[in-house]
């Protein structure tokens, strides 16, 4: 902005600070709640300053479990979630890179037909086709497996479109130069297209990792074995803990744990993420 008006500056800062508070306050409450014991969390008013039970709660959530008996720690759920999110993100990227490559660079019969078929799947998210998809996955014997958790979520029209757009911005001469250099289609894909869409792949990875991590409905449906539960499902499960009151300090602890991996991914890939979504220089 070229304008330099002190009042405007103060005003915009107030708006920004309010925005930060609105986003950060629930996170703070989550953190505070995870540091108190069960009794404190049932008393009013709710605490706004951290307590002293953080490591105790952490240990309980990760290694001990909620109730005695058959309970176990929930650390493995973080691993499940990570594997599921990674498989979904990487699988989606590979499939959509290849289909975008096919659509942009090959002239095959019914090319536009397939293009529109992919387009149509935008209208069919998992929630819409959940029963038939479940049937298919069940018949394939993929219930309670990582494949069952991820395969139905891997096909992605959005990512295919994004890569299609990326490939369309790469000048045709690049392909022609590669043809004169003697590069075949796959070599061109590997040596030229992949490196040139590196930042877009990174940006998409961040988005898709979070998408995969946040999956709730589908994992709830295809997993019955507790060892396949994901951490997001578990948050839901803990809220419906039968007759007992919800154990807010533990729920908040596991919520906190569930927030961390996506944050790490975003922070680690922030630079590539921004480049991938904004950079147009080819």
């Amino acid at each position, binding site marked *: 902005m070229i304008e330099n008006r002190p009042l405007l500056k103060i005003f915009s800062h107030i708006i920004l600070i309010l925005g930060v508070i609105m986003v950060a306050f629930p996170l703070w409450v989550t953190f505070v709640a995870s540091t108190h014991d069960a009794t404190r969390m049932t008393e009013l008013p709710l605490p706004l300053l951290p307590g002293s039970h953080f490591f105790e709660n952490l240990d309980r959530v990760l290694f001990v479990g909620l109730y005695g008996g058959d309970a176990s720690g929930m650390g493995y759920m973080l691993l499940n979630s990570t594997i599921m999110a990674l498989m979904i993100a990487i699988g989606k990227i590979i499939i959509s890179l290849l289909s975008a490559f096919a659509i942009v660079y090959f002239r095959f019969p019914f090319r536009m037909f397939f293009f529109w078929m992919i387009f149509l799947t935008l209208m069919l998210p998992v929630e819409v086709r959940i029963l038939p998809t479940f049937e298919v996955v069940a018949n394939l014997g993929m219930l309670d497996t990582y494949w069952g958790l991820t395969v139905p979520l891997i096909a992605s029209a959005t990512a295919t479109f994004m890569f299609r757009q990326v490939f369309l911005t790469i*000048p045709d*001469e*690049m392909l*022609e*130069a*590669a*043809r*004169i*250099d*003697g*590069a075949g289609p796959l*070599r061109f894909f590997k*040596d*030229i297209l992949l*490196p*040139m869409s*590196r930042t877009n792949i990174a940006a998409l990875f961040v988005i898709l990792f979070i998408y995969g991590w946040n999956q709730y409905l589908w994992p709830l449906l295809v997993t019955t074995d507790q060892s396949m539960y994901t951490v997001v499902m578990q948050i839901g499960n803990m809220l419906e803990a039968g007759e007992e009151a919800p154990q807010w300090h533990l729920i908040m602890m596991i919520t906190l744990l569930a927030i961390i991996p996506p944050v790490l991914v975003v922070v680690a890939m922030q630079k590539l993420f921004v480049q991938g979504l904004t950079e147009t*220089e*080819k």
Partner: protein
Amino acid sequence: MASVTLENLQKTYPNGFKAIHGVDVDIQDGEFLVLVGPSGCGKSTLLRMIAGLETITDGSLSIGGKAVNDLEPSKRDIAMVFQNYALYPHMTVYNNMAYGLKIMGLSKDEIDQRVKNAASILELTDEQLSRKPRQLSGGQRQRVAMGRAIVRKPSVFLFDEPLSNLDAKLRVQMRVEIKQLQESLGITSVYVTHDQVEAMTLGHRLMVLNAGNVEQLGTPLELYEKPASLFVAGFIGSPAMNILDATVAEDGKSVVIGTDTVLPVGANGVEGFDGKPVKLGIRPEHLEITPGAEGALPLTVTLVEHLGADTLLHGHFGNDKTDLTLRQSGTHLAKAGEVLPITITPNHIHLFDPETEKRIDF
């Protein structure tokens, strides 16, 4: 080294548009052929057909005596320099040049030697070799694109308007470099441009294309001195040739401009056009200001352009509204509105049939 032979080469696009209507040319070993024409005339298409980037609908193409119609570009023993350079942005300059050689399966030493050799020909430093293309200036990128062509040691170089992305000064400099490079390497080259100055200075022979047809093929001076059609006459030479309406006298020995300017034609006159209208072409540099000469035409000057070494006078003859250009060497202090006496030198005129637009020889 190889000759390139095009026989009745044709291109029809799937939508029925005919881009190339049969081109015949025999490009000699070591020759520099320039394809020139306005945008959309098919010159780039023709070049891309030679490269193998466009399919050939009909006719035959052979490089070094071997038919290559159905060969992949990489198998045709050619190298191409693109208008926008088409350098791989994520690779260093060195790798850009080495990429094709790696695919060829050459040894590391051989690749290194070829790249270093090309770099020294093109005066690229080691430091520049390790940079990415976007860190280079336009002229340097152009050099890298040529380096990528040189390292392949091809039989034929193909240039697709390689200088049109450069600024005017650099364009002149690179033009000279391309010419020298082609002469020292002696590699057969086909060069596409829409710039007639580039075409005239670079080519051993020029092929003027118009709407997919070959208008004329010949050396630069042949095209300048004996343009085969009105199109070539207007395209070659800058500023363009002046075209006037004229009539051939009844005896065929002279042409008449307007009513009373009579110019004798050749030694024996024109045949077959007695009393008929023709188009008369005269280059701006062949119009002379001749004060007091008999039969001089009055040129009303409308605009004066000073180029330093030359002066361009724009104007028209009397009531005839056809715009004319006159080139005078040196500075000429004529002003707009002045009327100058102009003489047309008879042995520099060109005549064209107004129906077919072809040259009338005399």
